């Protein structure tokens, strides 16, 4: 949409003002990592995160366990009221890419009304990566270490402040509301932003090349072609069916409704995992994927075949969270590398 410049101190003052009028989520540094958490209005200005946080936007927009309401006398059939306006800072390119999957999965046709409400009430302020984690591989799945679309506002650090790009009418309205703090972005600052982006992208690609990961462009064809490969069963030997890969994934969106109460009946919407044995099992006990390796394969099928075919985007954004979370050390990059060697 449009680009602006804001000096660092102006941005920090703006964030402080925001934290008093809306729920603010911001990265908090913890060792080498960042945690994306609610920020109080008295906390110091949040750091500019160099790469993605441990948590993705999913946990904010689509709660892990959410009471959707009561029935047959269980009260508030409309569901809970929700928490008002929110602002999220620190989303990176991979997380903005994930929103396209969540928006389709939870928002298309008949939308999940609670996701739709959270999405509507949340201003998403993303930012360019300045570095990458060892597990980052966005460039292998068509992504970039900076967001190009899908944010409300995106921040790119340049000398003295940030280039701010608006990506939505909400983002435009935000800049208009605080217009005194923003200036037009000069061609020199835009050039500085673009140079930093190109440099980091090249560095990340070199990182992939050094590790021998070159499968990106063919991932969809690859997963379709290697359905019968023994690699699935070999990799699944280390899977303990914990579901961590699903829960940390910014695009995994499957959930299960569960019923509670003896007199006041409530229904909860819970994150679910396609790695669990019962995920696709029907009442009579039959399951299309009784073996663990079939469920592991299913996760790749959803990400690399279903999502491109149905949504038009990759279901994997290359954030590397599942690589970090897996206690069996199943590494999606390694799996794809092994598969690409299959006939």
């Amino acid at each position: 949409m449009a680009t602006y410049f804001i000096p660092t101190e102006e941005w920090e003052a703006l964030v402080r003002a925001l934290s008093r009028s809306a729920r603010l989520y911001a990265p908090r540094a913890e060792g080498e990592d960042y945690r994306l958490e609610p920020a109080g209005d008295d906390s110091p200005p949040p750091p500019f995160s160099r790469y993605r946080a441990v948590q993705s936007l999913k946990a904010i927009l689509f709660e892990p366990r959410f009471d959707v309401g009561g029935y047959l006398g269980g009260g508030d059939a409309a569901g809970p009221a929700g928490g008002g306006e929110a602002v999220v800072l620190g989303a990176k390119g991979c997380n903005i890419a994930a929103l396209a999957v969540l928006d389709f999965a939870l928002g298309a046709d008949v939308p999940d009304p609670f996701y739709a409400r959270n999405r509507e009430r949340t201003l998403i302020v993303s930012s360019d990566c300045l570095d990458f984690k060892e597990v980052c591989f966005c460039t292998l799945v068509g992504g970039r270490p900076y967001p190009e679309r899908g944010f409300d506002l995106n921040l790119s650090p340049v000398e003295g402040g940030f280039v701010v790009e608006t990506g939505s009418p909400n983002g435009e309205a935000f800049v208009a509301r605080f217009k005194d703090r923003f200036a037009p972005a000069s061609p020199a600052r835009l050039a500085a932003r673009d140079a930093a982006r190109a440099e980091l992208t090249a560095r990340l690609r070199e990182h992939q090349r050094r590790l021998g990961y070159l499968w990106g462009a063919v991932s969809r064809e690859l997963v379709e072609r290697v359905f019968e490969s023994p690699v699935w069963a070999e990799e699944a030997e280390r899977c303990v069916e914990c579901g961590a890969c699903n829960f940390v994934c910014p695009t995994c969106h499957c959930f299960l409704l569960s019923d509670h109460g003896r007199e006041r009946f409530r229904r909860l919407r819970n994150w679910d995992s396609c790695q669990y044995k019962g995920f696709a099992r029907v009442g009579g006990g039959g399951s299309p994927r009784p073996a663990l390796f079939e469920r592991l394969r299913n996760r790749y099928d959803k990400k690399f075949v279903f999502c491109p075919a149905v949504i038009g985007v990759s279901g994997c954004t290359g954030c590397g969270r599942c690589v970090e979370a897996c206690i069996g050390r199943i590494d999606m990059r390694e799996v794809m590398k092994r598969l690409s060697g299959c006939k």
Partner: protein
Amino acid sequence: MNNPYLPVGATIREVVEESPTIRSFVLLPDEPVPFLTGQFLALTVPGVGEAPFTPSSSQYVTDRLELTVMRVGTVTEALHAMRPGDRVGVRGPFGTGYPLDAFRGRGVLVVGGGVGLAPLRSLLLTLRHDIERYRKVALRYGARTPADIIYRREVEEWRRDGRIDVAITVDRGDGEWTGRVGLVTTILQDTGIDPRDSVAVVCGPPVMMKFATFKLLDIGFPPAAIHLSMEKNMSCGFGKCGHCRLGTVYVCRDGPVLTYERVKDFREIWE
């Protein structure tokens, strides 16, 4: 806010024992739940959970719903313990229903197995409502034993009044059974329905669906004319929760009835 996750209340009016493991439930919903034949509902047993069922009543009857349920798991077990007057919840309808417009003027071969006759009963009642629209309607139904035949009296009535050409077979007879013995796949030929310009509708256990489909293909039904009721694990019912994904479709949203043409290239369709 319209909340698609919560059911409307319904009172159980009547419970009918169809077989040792199958019961029909007549429900009076607190507000009308209009549906198209083939669409399904999520039935809530309060505090226990939900399971998806296609109503077995006609789409033209709107003040009550009939569901025929086999006792197989947690929800159906709890439902079978319920009595007239008990309260349940109903959510839906979901899915797309049978494409009746595409059936018009053609022959309709309805193939059922076991409790799979439940959703087909809704279809047959709806077809009988204006049977003159279809060239010929035939039911071919297979059950394991004579005791497993559901809607027995009603199916006999259909057979007698002749609007539907009915044939039944059982896998194993008993002392009194004088009818056909054998799998349903053995009675799909010579139905008087021309496979080149007709449709087939199949519902039953997965293994029966598989072999019935192959038989229908053999006989000459095109893949696009074979309509299959796909049974999948479903939670939300409207294409959000991800449980029922089959290849590139969500069975709840795009089905639950899908043509063989639509699913034949997917894996895991018969499981």
